[in-house]
């Protein structure tokens, strides 16, 4: 298999039956990358480069234990909303109002918690998020208005609802401990280790299963490599997180894996499962790839569109709970400002196409890490004087917006160019 010309002699599904070794899989991936299909590679590279860069510029605060936990918590809400938006991006649609869907759901949660118990409040918040998603989906799939226009109108509409709910300019405090702990609470050190152990075993099992189904197209060495990398990575991160990361004079120690990690991971697994293993997921990709072909194959295209917006709404609502939990309150800015752009940006930077049909849930996580690293790292770098440029305040919102904007532009350029190349 080392001779690249040998491949041309193979016919009759030879590639499905030939065993591959580690080297040939790496080679296949290089070929795929050269053809312009970059997938998640830019996001992974960006995470490595940014971590190195910020770590070098500010080793004491950026690489600290507390910042590691803080970073995971910061990224969580954007990642969940990015997952929400991914569902409609897969169809080649967009939801510009997902941020405010999150805001409205958070406001419903906060205001209901003033009167109701936790579970009915969460139920009500989820219901409202679903209704908002269904409304958008109805307008797009049944009435036939482009999603860009519908959700642009919804930005104002939902923002208005949010303002009414939190009574113009006020803010609603959240006192419920469960919601407060959603972002900010931690697993105990022992359950952290149990969680990591169980997670690794499940990961290894799923990889081995995939290897068996693949007719040996995935070499066992690759499976071992992946599992070892995952084990080293997660054990390293966990061993940092289970140590006390509170400041020296803090009243209580802070230790353990933040709750957001298992929560986001569970969402990631569930949604990936839906997309890859169910008929519904398959139809979602089909409609995104070629709606006309999907229609002729007997798929109810409007229903798929509608359902994608409903799921988007529900997930955005969950993201809203994360947003609210982070600051323990809801105000008119919850889900506003750059929330939506960061979410769409996360999905696209992770490798999900804006043109539909291409993308994974994992992309939202990887892209979310990149877009959370940028403000996190820049804040800690603070004011620095660069030779020849003078002093620059990296911590200012201006610099952060510019950097995040450039990252998004870069990612969409990669998306557009690779699409151009493949057609």
């Amino acid at each position, binding site marked *: 298999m080392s001779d690249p010309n040998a491949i041309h002699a193979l016919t*009759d*599904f030879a590639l*499905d039956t030939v065993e591959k070794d580690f080297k040939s899989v790496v080679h296949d991936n290089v070929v795929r990358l050269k053809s312009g299909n970059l997938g998640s590679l830019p996001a992974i590279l960006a995470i490595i480069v940014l971590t190195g860069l910020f770590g070098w510029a500010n080793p004491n605060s950026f690489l600290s234990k507390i910042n590691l936990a803080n970073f995971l918590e910061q990224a969580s809400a954007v990642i969940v909303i990015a997952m929400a938006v991914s569902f409609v991006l897969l169809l080649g649609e967009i939801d510009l109002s997902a941020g405010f869907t999150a805001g409205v759901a958070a406001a419903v949660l906060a205001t209901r918690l003033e009167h109701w118990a936790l579970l009915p409040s969460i139920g009500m918040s989820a219901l409202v998020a679903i209704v908002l998603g269904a409304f958008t989906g109805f307008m797009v799939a049944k009435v036939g208005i482009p999603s860009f226009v519908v959700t642009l109108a919804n930005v104002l509409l939902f923002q208005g609802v949010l303002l009414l709910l939190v009574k113009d300019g006020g803010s609603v405090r959240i006192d419920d401990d469960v919601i407060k702990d959603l972002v900010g609470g931690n697993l105990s050190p022992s359950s952290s280790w149990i969680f990591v152990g169980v997670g690794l075993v499940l990961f290894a099992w799923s990889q081995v299963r995939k290897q068996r189904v693949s007719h040996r197209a995935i070499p066992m060495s690759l499976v071992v490599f992946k599992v070892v990398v995952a084990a080293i990575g997660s054990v390293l991160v966990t061993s940092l997180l289970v140590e006390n990361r509170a400041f020296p004079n803090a009243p209580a120690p802070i230790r353990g894996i933040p709750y957001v990690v298992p929560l986001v991971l569970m969402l990631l697994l569930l949604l990936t499962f839906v997309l890859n293993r*169910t008929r519904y997921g398959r139809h979602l990709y089909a409609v995104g790839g*070629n709606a006309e072909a999907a229609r002729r*194959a007997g798929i109810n295209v409007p229903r798929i569109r509608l359902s994608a917006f409903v799921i988007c709404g529900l997930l955005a609502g969950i993201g809203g709970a994360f947003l609210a939990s982070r600051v323990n309150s809801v105000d008119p800015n919850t889900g506003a400002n750059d929330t939506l752009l960061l979410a769409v940006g996360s999905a696209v930077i992770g490798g999900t196409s804006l043109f539909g*049909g291409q993308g994974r849930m994992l992309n939202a996580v990887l892209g979310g890490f990149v877009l959370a690293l940028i403000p996190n790292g820049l804040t800690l770098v603070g004011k620095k004087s660069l030779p020849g440029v003078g002093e620059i305040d990296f911590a200012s919102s201006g610099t952060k917006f510019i950097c995040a904007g450039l990252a998004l532009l870069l990612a969409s350029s990669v998306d557009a160019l690779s699409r151009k190349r493949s057609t």
Partner: protein
Amino acid sequence: MNTDAAILEASGINKTFGPVHVLHDVDFKVYAGQVTSLIGDNGAGKSTLVKCITGIYPKDSGTFAFEGQPVDIGGPRVASELGIEVVYQDLALCENLDIVQNLFLGRERLKTGLLDERSMEQATRDTLAGLSVRTVKSVRQSVSSLSGGQRQTVAIAKAVLWKSKVVLLDEPTAALGVAQTRQVLDLVRRLAENGIGVVLISHNMNDVIEVSDRVCAMYLGRVVADVPVTSATKREFLVELITSGRSGDVGLREEATI
């Protein structure tokens, strides 16, 4: 089954769109194990006839018989239940999906509620092997990585996978180069050898003469000739039929011309 009898027979089909009479008493037969070419100029009514056969347009009058039994093709679903499949010119493939996913699109096999990838993959390989397709390296290739001819092959395989009895191909070679046209024409022949009734719609008279058993020519909504290919071995003969509705003794009589 009697091979002389048509597997699909349309008789006296009329279709109007408002004031426009698109199909005039069209008789059309498809035989199992044979390639029947449907030729005609643009606007002759070929596509309309195909859409009537597949239930996309309701006919105004006339009857259909399938395997000798009268049938009412009331919609696309009825047609596909009978085993009539169409491969449209635009192929209707999802480029982002792989070959297996495209073949089973809309009719995925499930095992305990989840996609049964293994069985679908095997069935895909069996179908392609049954058509002697030798150019596809992996059934897990995405369609976007396939050539035009391979895509046509996948689209045809998609129609065949469902044990179809009649397959209608709309201009399958129109956008292909010489080598790929060759592949597709071979595939068309193989479909017929597998006992399927094949209808080939084409503008390329060389393809028609080479691959067909019978030729059905349409002119301004009428069938002007329905002859075995052995009596239509000249390109000029066919061109004359589709441009003027007659050629020598075959075709419309003078007074019937519009």
